């Protein structure tokens, strides 16, 4: 099993971050807030690992970053999806959906026929 990261499986955090940035550049805090709201505060236990994930994704080339100024004029680091990142998001969403469907179907199976 993949190592948990901040309470979530590692891969899950990655795809959430990619999704969070799919509407445009955000800084790390905004991504954290979005994950909270989107998962109804259910999943993200710690916020630190989010930053580890952001830097990791940038190293992999799925994100690029820039320094900018936030709404309240503080210096912040903004992330955005690269073209490869966008591609990765599509891929991850497809396989996630497949995974979820498969497990759901298995879990809702009736008792096997005897014989």
């Amino acid at each position, binding site marked *: 099993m993949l190592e948990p990261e901040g309470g979530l499986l590692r891969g899950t955090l990655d795809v959430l971050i990619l999704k969070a940035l799919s509407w445009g550049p955000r800084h790390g805090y905004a991504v954290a807030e979005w994950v909270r709201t989107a998962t109804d505060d259910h999943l993200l236990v710690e916020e630190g690992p989010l930053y580890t994930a952001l830097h990791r994704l940038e190293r992999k080339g799925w994100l690029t970053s*820039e320094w900018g100024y936030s709404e309240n004029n503080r210096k912040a680091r903004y992330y955005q999806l690269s073209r490869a990142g966008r591609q990765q998001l599509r891929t991850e969403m497809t396989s996630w959906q497949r995974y979820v469907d498969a497990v759901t179907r298995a879990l809702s199976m009736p008792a096997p026929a005897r014989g």
Partner: protein
Amino acid sequence: MRRAVGNLGERNIPRHVDEELAFHIEMRTQHLIARGMSPDAARAEALRQFGDLTAVRQACIANDEERVRATRRAGAMDELKQNLVYAARTLRRNAGFATGVVLTLAVGIGANVAIFTLVHAVLLRPLPVANPEALVAIGNPSWVNSVSHSTNVRTETFNWEHYKTLRERLPGFSGVLASGRADGIELRADASAAEPDRPRTRFVSGNYFQVLGVPAARGRAFTAGDDEGIGASPVAVISHALWQRRFNADPGVVGRDVVINSSRFTIVGVMPEQFRGEIVGQNTDLWLPLTMQPVIHPRRPWLTEREAYWLLLLGRRGPGVSFEQAKSQVETAVRQIVTDAWTEGSPPPPNEIDVLVSDGARGFSAVRGASGTALTTLLVGVGVLLLIICANVANLLLARAVARGREMSLRLAIGAGRGRLVRQLLSESMLLALAGAVIGLVLARWGSRLLLVLHADGARAVTLDTGLVLPVVGFTAGLAVLTVVTFGLIPAWRTSRVDLATALRAGARGTTGSGSAAAGVRNALGRSLIAAQVALSLVLLIGAALLVRSLQSVHNQDMGLDRDHLIIADVDATTRGYAGERLAVMMKELADRLHRIGGVTAVTYSENGIFSGTESATTFQVPGFIAKADEDTLAAYDRIGPGYVTAIGGRLLRGREITQDDLDRRVRVALVNQTMARFYFGDTDPIGRAIQLDDSVSVQIVGVIDDVKDHELKGEVGRRFYVPIVGNADNDPSALSFEVRTAGDPAPIVEKVRQTIIEFDAQLPIERVSTLSQLMRQSVREDRLLARLASGFGLLALLLAAIGLYGVMTYAVSRRTGEIGLRLALGAQRTSVIRMVLGDSLRIVLIGILIGVPLALGASRLLRNQLYGISATNPSAFAVALGVLVVSAIAAALVPAWRASRVEPLLALRQD
């Protein structure tokens, strides 16, 4: 508004991460304060919600650093690719120049790699067996083909009895093999074969292949069982090469019967292709069990003769046994053997028993000693040559640098850093060096093989593996890198150092104007490079001159016999079946027949010829002489026919010759040479004194002969005595040579000698018929080759330096055209112009000489061991080399000087 980050320096990464994380904590804190928490509580809660700040910070920094590194790597790769592509394009545009440089580099690198291949094969390469570092050589590893007869225990080679004893008494070894000389082997694949094969053969113990760790490729190798009874294992193992050559790679060769020297043997195995025996420089094609030696050579059964010391031993250290432990075990065991062998009445054994125990990873080799030093000397010489070539190439690149000023300044102007330019230029040098190295590698394969052929000079070639091995390729790669650094760096640096404004303004003309500072520096650099080339060429020339002088002194020395009028004919009488009385009669008759050939003035015969093949030595006692060391009782000897001394043109100093009468009556007499006479008898007359040979036979000295150089041109003549070839021992001579003296040039008589022998007995195997001068030349063929190669290198180096000098002078003159024109216009003589240019060039040469002579004095010390009869500072050699250098320099500078004097003053003045 967002600001681009730009180049993320590695030092900024931690700061950026801190800022980013601080922003988050701050935002979270503000958020919590807005919910009603106190600022302190909010901050604490924000930190709690964040998690392990330190760990996250570390992870983020690590990720960022890796990202930056990866980007940099990719950037460097891109730049390198760009550089190489651009370099290739530039070189293609100047294809002529590039080809010239690549070829010169190829020659230089190729020569180095060729010599290194040989150095590696002779000196460095371990045997192609399992774990060769565990092998230990016992005995003198260069005595591969020797047999000594002695009643004292000898330790350079061993007899069979002592080998078997040692094998039992060395527990630190997992196995000890024995290997001995096998000559005169004739192999007939089938009875009908017309011409027998004469493969290089070794007699080996049953555990030979097992100790070495080489399994047979086909069939089986020898086993301990093949060591059992004498003559009980008529089996043979052949090499891959022999299998291919003689048996046409017949897959059914295992089990085939062959005839070896009239005995039937069965081939039981074929060795893998890369195994050619344990002797470097002497590949073995056929292995026979030791126990078969008396069957092959019934007349000299060394195996069972107690006094025959002919085996070399190679042991494999057991696991956990160090070399030191193994060595002391061997020494103890040998000491025990010597003590056990001592019999009552003999002189007590010496306290120090010297047995040579050395590293056996590289096997035995007869050529390693002498050739080793010669090869390393050559390597140094050829290395110097490569340096000169690099200097030449550097000069060429510098010359082009001037023409590329515009290109460089353009690139600088649009923003390339100087470092980028240097890297670009180095890429060009790298491509040149790479191409040169690849071609050089190919040339080297031919070169090393050619060297071996030249070295053989008609005699049997030394067999070495000159294939492509990792060390050789590695050496080539290393050389390529070194050459790039040597010839590429300075021109690259120079070329990139361009004064923007001047370069662009000068336009297409380049910067040949005399006012250009860059050109001035270029000139100075060029001149220093030439001076360096001159210095190095001088080193090579002096080395060559010393070697040539040494060779001359070797040739011109007095050998103690008539070297220009002798023919030596070696025959194998024992194989043919001559023995005892029949042999005595045959020797006399054949000598008579040879004497009757037109042009022959004298004929004699002996066991060991002159400058051919065998030598004999023995220990003896001289009554009245106290030996201080074991060696003092040892001397070389020969068994000779009648009138030997006069026949070979030797000088009889005292007493009389050995006559036919002595032979007929089996008188026990002897001649001694001057060295021996002085050693044992000092100034007293040795005539009439007796020598006690070991088998209690006493011979009386009847004459003293002046020292003769009979086997080696270099080296001192040792003690030697001569006894009649007949009636002096129980066994027949193991070899036979005829010495034929001619009135005039012996060369045309050689064939007649051969014919006469064939007419006398067509079945008598003739090993060799040759003039003594030919044999002598062959004995120093290595020195001759070395001298020739050194001269070749020296002259090549001189040629390169001369070309360089010519180039630099031409350039210097072109820069001073205006000045020269002015001088001529003001009335200077044309000869003064010539003098000026010559003077200028001689200044460069002088600096080169001033550097070169001390260098040569130091380098010539390397040659000390190669030189004979002259010192490493022989003045005439230095003088000759200097003379050749100066003359060549003047010749090279003469053309530009003359052209300078032909300058038309008006044209020159207008041009500037």
